[in-house]
């Protein structure tokens, strides 16, 4: 029993670390460090950098452009990624629809869609939730009616993250209502966002940004070759997608990076005044968080160790999403608490690449802390709310 890396793993770690040192674009790094929001172009440039290195899709099979990394290598990469404060991959193409296409798509679809996803030339968004179907996703009503070689789509998808930047959307749609179980009769289709009848309306979220959208389909004609797998089996494919999300969603490495940053911030009197290190209540909150995060880290390591020897992850893996998001949100809270009054000025555009820190309200990043806190309340809601996660664990792990 040990948690040491092998010689090869250590070598790999060095390789990854020098990649981040040499290839991570300095302007994107500066934006990340100064809490300046990234543009679509920044994400694309960064993901193309990974693509050129052959590292765009650590989870994909090698034949489709994956890295062939072991679970430990993926873990090392995620850690170095977080330590470099590099952006996370935008998940909709590489993390979500890609695996569904290479698992359930036909050869034609794989050839047509996977290269664009891998190179980040084609941007995807997710069409799952509907205004009337949140946690109860199987109640979805967007209809796809067969008309010759096409489906005609009518309905509305919502909470579509980055839908306004996307070229394509993958959707769960109802192809049949005449079914015994509501999970049947749902199909997985790919829709070009430029198709006539598709319209995107912004939803402004709590922190004042446009991140999510409503996507309306009005008699949208979708060729039958955009159906993935079998008609009516979309629910199964959609669930597989959520499993791909599971292992990466905890965000352990990123939370560790942020915790260290918080510790440094409260130690440094340039970043906060007065120093909070003498505040026993605040220090206790940090201590508690550190222990929770340690629990999450070792839970992830246990999961990795199981996967590495070909075992299925045990019940421990089911807590990753719940605890991972809770810890992220706790960090958001503590950054805001550390900022004090300076979390309150609503000056979302004050940080730019050429703005002078002397002109900023508050210490570094303070004014963003509240916006991150508000925005990230989403973390325990998306991808199946934490309450839904508990329902799933109760049923599948506890057998209740």
């Amino acid at each position, binding site marked *: 029993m040990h948690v040491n890396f092998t010689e090869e793993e250590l070598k790999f770690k060095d390789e990854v670390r020098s990649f981040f040192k040499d290839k991570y674009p300095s302007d994107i790094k500066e934006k990340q460090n100064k809490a300046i929001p990234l543009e679509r172009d920044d994400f694309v440039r960064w993901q193309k950098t990974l693509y050129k290195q052959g590292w765009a899709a650590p989870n994909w099979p090698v034949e489709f452009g994956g890295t062939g990394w072991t679970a430990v290598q993926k873990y090392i990469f995620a850690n170095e990624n977080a330590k470099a404060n590099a952006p996370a991959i935008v998940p909709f193409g590489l993390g979500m629809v890609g695996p569904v296409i290479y698992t359930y798509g036909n050869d034609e679809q794989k050839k047509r869609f996977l290269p664009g996803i891998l190179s980040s030339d084609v941007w995807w968004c997710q069409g799952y939730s509907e205004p009337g179907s949140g946690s109860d996703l199987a109640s979805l009503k967007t209809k796809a009616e067969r008309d010759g070689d096409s489906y005609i789509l009518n309905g509305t998808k919502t909470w579509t993250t980055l839908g306004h930047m996307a070229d394509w959307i993958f959707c769960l749609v109802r192809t049949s209502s005449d079914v015994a179980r509501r999970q049947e009769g749902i199909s997985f289709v790919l829709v070009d966002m430029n198709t006539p009848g598709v319209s995107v309306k912004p939803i402004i979220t709590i922190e004042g940004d446009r991140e999510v959208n409503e996507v309306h389909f009005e008699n949208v004609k979708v060729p039958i070759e955009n159906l993935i797998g079998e008609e009516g089996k979309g629910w199964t494919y959609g669930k597989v997608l959520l499993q791909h999300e599971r292992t990466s969603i905890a965000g352990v490495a990123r939370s560790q990076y942020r915790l260290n940053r918080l510790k440094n911030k409260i130690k440094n009197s340039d970043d906060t005044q007065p120093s909070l290190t003498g505040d026993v209540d605040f220090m206790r909150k940090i201590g508690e968080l550190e222990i929770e995060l340690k629990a999450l880290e070792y839970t992830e390591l246990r999961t990795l160790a199981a996967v590495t*020897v070909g075992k299925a992850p045990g019940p421990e893996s089911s807590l990753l999403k719940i605890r991972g998001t809770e810890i992220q949100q706790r960090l958001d809270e503590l950054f805001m608490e550390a900022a004090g009054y300076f979390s309150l000025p609503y000056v979302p555009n004050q940080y730019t690449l050429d703005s002078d820190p002397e002109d900023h309200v508050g210490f570094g990043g303070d004014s963003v802390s509240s916006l991150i806190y508000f925005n990230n309340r989403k973390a325990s809601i998306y991808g199946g709310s934490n309450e839904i996660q508990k*329902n799933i664990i109760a049923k599948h792990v*506890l057998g209740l």
Partner: protein
Amino acid sequence: MDFSITEEQSAIKDVIARFIENEYDFEKRMKIAESDSAYDKEVYNFFVEQGFTAIPFSEEDGGLNGGPVETMLIMKEIGRGLVLEPFLENIILAGGILKRLANQHQKDEWLNKIINGEMQSTLAFTEPQSRFQLNDVATTANKKEGNFILNGKKSFVLNGSESDLIIVPARTSGSQTDLKGITLFAVKKDSAGIEMNSYKSVDGRSAAEIKLNNVSVSSDSIIGEIDNGYDALEATVDEATLAICAEATGIMKSLHDKTVEYSKNRVQFGIPIGGFQALQHRMVDTLMACEETESILLWAITTEQDDKSALKKAISGLKYQIGTAGKHVGQEAVQLHGGMGISWELDIAHLFKRLSAIEILFGNADFHMKRFIELSNV
């Protein structure tokens, strides 16, 4: 990275798990707990025969060279089976001091007998005023004509009334809470001037309040150096803390499993109560608490044993986790069992009581959180 255990380690676990299943059921455990003696000698002898009592000692000392993994495996089963026999007191506490500091003569005289089960022993780690501060030692040892005269009180001495040998930290210099000036003495139970008030604790153990009234011991009974006993005392209690945390992990898992099982069978309002979402989510929470505790336990177990400050920090993190998550899991198990949860005749109550005792033993959650923060160096 590897969390698997070796075949040898797996064999240890199997032997004790099988023994508890076949020979140490709840009824037997309760008989032992309610008997005058603190433990069952036959059961303890079985531990000796199987070599469990030799595990955490070096081969030179007549041990099996086991490490934290082996101790963890044994203690988890001890937790699950609510085993009362004084493995912790003899092997981890008294044995822990002796293996760290005793000279060859002392090892021959005492450690061998402890490993072979020929002698019972313990460590008197606390005093009435100390609470969880190991360095708060008011008991004094004054030199007189080549001997040392001990005066003071020791509290909650586990296995005290059964012990032939009690290791007593006493102050030979400095003021009451100085780290320097604590000396460890091996005191025989039948020494003149020892007054012992023994009792059972809420978790069915034997413990004692001990008064030392001018107890005279020779300088041969000093374990280690004069004034320099604190580090070994702290390291030993840390090792014991790790051990009882493994025990608590076993108890928590057992409480959680039994609660889930109970909820599948207990019918109210026409359905098993496990069908109610309000209860389902609470059992998911206790599952997560158990898994997180297991993860933190593995953190402490896999921390480099030579990296003293990292190890202390991990152990305090773990004890904090037991103090909070353990309390959560224990209270939920009782609550979800309803009236059955507060009945003496069910194991739930006794698992809960042992877990509650462990939460306090060697420092509660608050104590270890403070220590964790101090060691974090923020």
